[in-house]
């Protein structure tokens, strides 16, 4: 009996992940309906629960991939990995209103510029106040505040120390997690209810996983607009952080 269970766990990872996520979504929908009268979106509850499970998985295994590090849940790594995530994001473009997207073009560009500069400056400032004085560490920590990919890419390019790179990743991951969880709560406050503001949101927040999760939990129809700008964010960050931004930080320190 145990052998059969083990064989299924090992061979059917992705299928098991489908069933698991389905069950989680079903439980979240029930919670949303009965406990919050539909006020908190079922997907928001599901994402929060998944993050809690990821935390638990990290505690259990000491690994870096949350629940996916627990044997048996490894299929989650494939289902929620970058490949299928990007595939599904692209699919959402099928429903994009081209006229709306075009109208927000300029705003998307402004949002992308602000979304790179503002977090970077803030990150550098916080790192400075915590006693970091060398340009390489400051730039890497600032880059981590842009997204958790920009941080390590910048750190590797500049030759930052490993603890600094780890801190920059942690900052970026925390940002992604915060965007996922807080977006549905502040959506109405910041006017996040139309394609145009969703494109501004995507450009400003940047982190694709954060934007994807946050918008999914707020209003599914906004997802493609946010993703359209967010996808350029990491590339732009990796472009300017180790180059222009580093030179500016070095000139100032």
């Amino acid at each position, binding site marked *: 009996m145990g052998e059969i269970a083990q064989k299924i766990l090992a061979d059917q990872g992705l299928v098991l992940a489908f069933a698991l996520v389905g069950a989680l979504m079903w439980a979240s929908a029930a919670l949303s309906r009965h406990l919050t009268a539909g006020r908190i979106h079922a997907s928001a509850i599901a994402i929060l629960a998944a993050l809690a499970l990821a935390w638990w998985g990290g505690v259990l295994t000491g690994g870096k991939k949350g629940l996916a590090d627990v044997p048996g849940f490894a299929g989650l790594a494939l289902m929620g990995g970058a490949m299928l995530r990007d595939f599904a994001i692209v699919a959402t473009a099928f429903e994009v209103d081209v006229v709306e997207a075009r109208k927000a073009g300029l705003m998307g560009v402004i949002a992308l510029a602000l979304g790179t500069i503002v977090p970077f400056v803030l990150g550098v400032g916080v790192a400075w106040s915590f006693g970091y004085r060398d340009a390489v560490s400051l730039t890497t920590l600032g880059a981590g505040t842009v997204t958790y990919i920009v941080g390590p890419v910048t750190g590797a390019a500049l030759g930052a120390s490993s603890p600094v790179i780890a801190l920059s990743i942690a900052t970026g991951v*925390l940002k992604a997690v*915060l965007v996922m969880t807080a977006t549905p709560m502040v959506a109405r406050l*910041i006017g996040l209810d139309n394609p145009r503001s969703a494109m501004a949101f995507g450009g400003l927040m940047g982190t694709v996983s954060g934007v994807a999760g946050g918008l999914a939990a707020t209003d599914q129809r906004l997802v*493609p607009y946010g993703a359209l700008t967010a996808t350029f964010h990491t590339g732009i960050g990796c472009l300017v952080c180790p180059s222009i931004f580093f030179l500016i930080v070095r000139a100032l320190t």
Partner: protein
Amino acid sequence: MAIYGTALLALCTLLGAALGEVLGVALHVKANVGGVGIAMLLLIAAKAWLARQGKLTPGLRLGVEFWAVMYIPIVVAMAAQQNVLAAVEGGPMVVIAGVGAVTLCFALVAVLGRVMGRRHG
């Protein structure tokens, strides 16, 4: 045929990823620059072209739309494999930088939405 839709989606995603890599190399960046965004634009263009040709069949649509609606479950799976522990245990600097950046950017979304919204009337 649904597979035509899924294959079209795959083709756009692959082309976008390749172009994003090319852009990354051209800009000397160790990252994919806008691959997903390029793929989305390709898919939008492909849909418009198919619609003009009268070839946007329900089967083809199904092959794309299935993946679009699977998007949220995939995001839930993505959330389940984040390194949440590291994010939580990063210490005060990480928390201040993370919370500060997110708060500031939320405020900017509101500002930008209001300013630009007025300009477009």
